[in-house]
């Protein structure tokens, strides 16, 4: 059973116990720098499914490597970024996108900043409109000045 297990383990555990290979490896890279740059940008937007929130660009996992290679193959085949993303989403769901798409499920996610911006600005504008007229405070009366002198006097006198 020994090495048989090793084979199984190797396949199973690539995900968690990788050989050390961060991010894109020299062997994976495309010759054309423009296409390679596209691949890098795409990779940064896709989640490595077996890692904790890392993009496949940053991840060391074998799975991320496979995805990087896959993306480059499809780029070479002439697919657009949108096509590649659509293909991956169709297979792995929205989970693979680090920037979730805007739809009913994520309405609140994308809407919150906008909503708060509107509400907050609104509240401030309302407050400014309703603000009491700013008056110069009436000067201190004689009695007040006297009390004040009495209180502060100890330091000055």
């Amino acid at each position, binding site marked *: *059973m*020994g*090495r*048989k*297990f*090793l*084979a*199984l*383990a*190797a*396949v*199973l*555990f690539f*995900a*968690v116990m990788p050989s050390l290979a961060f991010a894109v490896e020299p062997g994976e890279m495309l010759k054309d720098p423009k296409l390679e740059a596209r691949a890098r940008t795409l990779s940064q937007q896709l989640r490595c499914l*077996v890692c904790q929130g890392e993009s496949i660009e940053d991840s060391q996992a074998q*799975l991320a490597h*496979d*995805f990087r290679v*896959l993306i480059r193959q499809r780029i070479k085949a002439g697919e657009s970024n949108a096509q590649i993303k659509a293909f991956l989403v169709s*297979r792995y769901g929205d989970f693979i996108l680090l920037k979730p798409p805007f739809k009913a499920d994520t309405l609140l996610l994308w809407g919150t900043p906008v909503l708060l911006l509107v509400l907050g600005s609104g509240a401030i504008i309302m407050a400014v409109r309703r603000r009491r007229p700013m008056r*110069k*405070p*009436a*000067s*201190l009366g004689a009695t*007040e000045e006297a*009390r*004040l002198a009495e*209180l*502060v006097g100890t*330091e000055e006198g």
Partner: protein
Amino acid sequence: MLWGLLALFTGAAVFAILWPLARRPRGRAEHVAPDVAFYKAKLEEIAREGESGVLSQEEAEAARTEAARRLLKSADAVTPEETAKAPASPRLRLRLVAILGLVFIPAVSLGLYSVIGNPSMPDDPLAARLDVSPNKMTLQVAIAKVEAHLRQHPEDGRGYEVLVPAYLKEGRVEDAVRAASMAMRKLGATPERETVYGETLVYAAHGVVTDDAHKLFVQAAAGPTPPLKALFFLGLAASQDGDKATAANYWQKLMARLPEKSPGRAELKARIAALENASPAPKAAEVAAIAGMSPAQRQATIHKMVDRLAARLARNGQDVEGWLRLVRAYKVMNETDKARAALATARHDLGNDAKAMGRIDALARELGLS
């Protein structure tokens, strides 16, 4: 001694309550003092900023008026009669709180401590435990002493050599690996040391002869009289590779050199016999094929492999390694429910084997499934 200290602590805690109760409180004037001080300081600050030109004269005047009003308001919060005398606390209330402190603090702390504490257990620092007479020394203490010695004299290779079998006896395989490698480095490589190092690596890999270990055994066996163990492990490596002929060859060589009465002969014979019946292992090509698959295909292949393993364990559950692998596999595949179910079945099947149960439990903890 301990109880004396605990009593002292409790006393200090109670004192912290009783002391302020017994002191004369501050006067009422002090209640507003911080507010008054604040606005006074603010007036000073405004005056300073006015002088230095940070504030324009108009700004300074307006700010002064505002601050002065607030100063007057806070100063007037206390009437002159109140200023002098401190209000007395009702005696009954003070007594009540004092008694509360005297009773509540010890009751809660001693009550809780008696449930969760271990007052009878002394400290047990390592240095003191190592300081025992040699005839009372357990293996553990002996190991610890050698370790301490090595920390002082890291160049002493013999120390590492002594430790290897001791570690193995204690089940500390990883430490054994380290010690064996150190011994080899400090004292130089010999066939014996290479074999020992390789052996520890095999144990660390849960019985698999890894490539590193294999290399060591090959080196060790290069001489005219290879160490017996090296032969054994070379045979094991070949059998794990599915190379029955080579395995049998090594083990036959070993058999020839084993003394007649050696207890190992019977086992070795059984192993040679088992070679004939073993199922073929996956070829390197097969492994490579899996690695080269697309993620989806690989997923399917892995599922198949895992299912096969599960089926085998369902027939015969007396295989710790198998269970550990299965649980791990499910976990990696994110099938937590199946992993839990497998754990439960494994516990049921292996119920009589305490050691196996320990490993199962350890894995469950490691994977967060317990």
